[in-house]
């Protein structure tokens, strides 16, 4: 009895209870949502399925997106842009990378943990936006497949048109006025494809007549293969090139030299007076 009380009064007990509550709610929520999505997936007639996907997407849109983008996705001036014509690929990219829902119109949208977690839900919203008027579609698995893609040619293209912002190995980099090009280290092939197609944030658009779908696959192959390159020095240092390496070498060696100088010249024991 006393042992139980003592445990209940332990400083960590409160955190543990909250964590337990959150996990159980999350599990229950995911069980419910996955149940609903699986019930929506098998279609008897394609059109019905598509319609139900659009209507499901609209329901999610109304609940989670319309406060900024307007009830009909027409946009709210100063808050959120119109989504008519942006296409399913843009929606899938923005939501699947966690950039949407945004933290606010003033913020730069960055990759963060998903708030709409199920791909089926994201695809539903994407289908709804696509139904409003065209735009690039979400690429199929075949379109982003890396089999037969040439990473070597992809590197040429990447160096010509991507590396200036995203760094030679996709480690990202700085842009103007505090904006930055994100690292590509965790992007899925689908997300890379969608980003090229739709030009999210400050990124230019690389449409399919400028960078062909085959070339996009080559670029993806390069980005993905580069991640697996070994770091024989032990540390990648973010792979952002000579700046960090130089900084580490400079500061590290400087520190080492300072301590070495201190040690060499320190007065030692009785030998000195």
């Amino acid at each position, binding site marked *: 009895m006393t042992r139980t009380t003592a445990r209940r009064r332990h400083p960590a007990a409160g955190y543990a209870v909250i964590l337990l509550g959150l996990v159980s709610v999350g599990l229950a929520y995911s069980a419910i949502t996955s149940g609903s999505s699986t019930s929506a997936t098998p279609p008897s007639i394609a059109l019905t399925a598509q319609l139900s996907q659009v209507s499901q997407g609209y329901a999610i849109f109304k609940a989670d997106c319309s406060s900024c983008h307007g009830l009909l996705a027409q946009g709210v001036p100063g808050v959120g842009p119109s989504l008519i014509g942006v296409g399913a690929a843009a929606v899938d990219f923005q939501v699947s990378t966690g950039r949407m829902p945004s933290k606010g119109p003033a913020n730069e949208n960055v990759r963060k943990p998903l708030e709409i977690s199920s791909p089926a839900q994201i695809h539903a919203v994407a289908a709804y936006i696509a139904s409003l008027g065209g735009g690039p579609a979400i690429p199929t698995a075949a379109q982003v497949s890396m089999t037969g893609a040439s990473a070597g040619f992809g590197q040429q293209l990447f160096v010509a048109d991507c590396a200036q912002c995203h760094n030679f190995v996709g480690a990202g980099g700085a842009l103007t006025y505090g904006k930055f090009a994100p690292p590509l280290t965790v992007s899925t092939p689908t997300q890379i494809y969608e980003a090229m197609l739709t030009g999210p944030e400050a990124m*230019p658009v690389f449409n399919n007549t400028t960078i062909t779908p085959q070339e996009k696959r080559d670029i993806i192959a390069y980005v993905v293969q580069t991640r697996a390159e070994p770091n024989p020095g032990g540390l990648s240092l973010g792979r952002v090139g000579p700046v960090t390496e130089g900084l580490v070498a400079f500061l590290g060696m400087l520190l080492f030299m300072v301590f070495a100088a201190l040690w060499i010249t320190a007065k030692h024991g009785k*030998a000195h007076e």
Partner: protein
Amino acid sequence: MSDSTAGHRPGDSDLTGSGSAAGLPPDGNASDGEAGAEETGTAPHRVIGTPPPAQARTLLGTGPAADAGGDGAVAPRELPADPPDLASAKRAERVVVACFIVAMLAGFGFIAAYLIFSVHSVTNVLHSNLALGSTMAIAFLALAVGATIWVRRLMPDVELTEQRKPLRSSPEDRAAFAQTFEEGADASQFTKRPLVRRTLIAATVPVALAPIVLLRDMGPLPGKSLDRTVWRKGLRLLNYGANTPIRPSDFSSPGGMITVVPDGYQDDFDALAKAAVIIIKFGPGQIVYGTKPYPVPGAVVPNWSVNNIVAYSKICTHVGCPAALYEQTTHHILCPCHQSTFDAARGAKVIFGPATRPLPQLPMTTDAEGYLVAQSDFTEPVGPSFWERG
């Protein structure tokens, strides 16, 4: 130098300060004679490098007093033969020995790494570099640490003062040198035969001029080559990488940006160093055209663009880095080297950073087949400023 008078002297008496001008001239120096007498009278005859008698083991502090007295004192020992704490010295010795052994092993490791790692692929080279670098670093570091511990723990920490001899030679020496010099000049006939002297001087002139003439290899001067690029009328813009020509209808998405190169020069890196271009597609009404006719810095020239597509030099006007960080939301072109920022919608006007001129705009049009081509070369030099640019 003083060997002629005190050949047997151990040589360390000069350090004691017994004579300020000890032993410089070979003869006739009073202080030298005094020192010599002192040495020959009392100093033990010993071989350099062997330990002195036990009574001589005194520190420097007692030296000057004994020396000043100058009576019956042995040459004082200045450095202690042993460290004060022998047990501590023993421990230090072991550490030093361990360091040196580590250095030796790492040195052998370097040789082994050189022999073992083949370097026929990039990955192998990286591993080889890692092994060679770390073994060499360990070897040098262990050597340095061992030496430092040796110095700090085993060698004595004693300050010595060495008296300096006067730098000026004696008057006799100086007179003798002057005489020798003059006699030599006469005997060599250098002064007596001016023809020989002058032809010798003339012979050295071309040798001295040759390095100056070799500076010519730094030329020739660039002339007009910096003023123009390989772009010319009718040359197609190729999508770099795929090297395909571009129709305005292909490059149709507003916010698009692509690097292009002149047709026929896609593999000519010397040419591309100046001729690289980015083309940018704007939405309707986004471009701010200049109101005055060309040339207007900081304004897009209307009849140089095609369907809201504008072409700018990719070479930054600051120091020539590739400036191609294009933001479609703000229309900024950023140069990554020094953050020069250009407004692509306003003729690549400089809005931030050290660049002083806009990126030059390439005049564009379409050819009979509808592909983007250049109307002409750039109308101003691309890239950084240079002396002759004016």
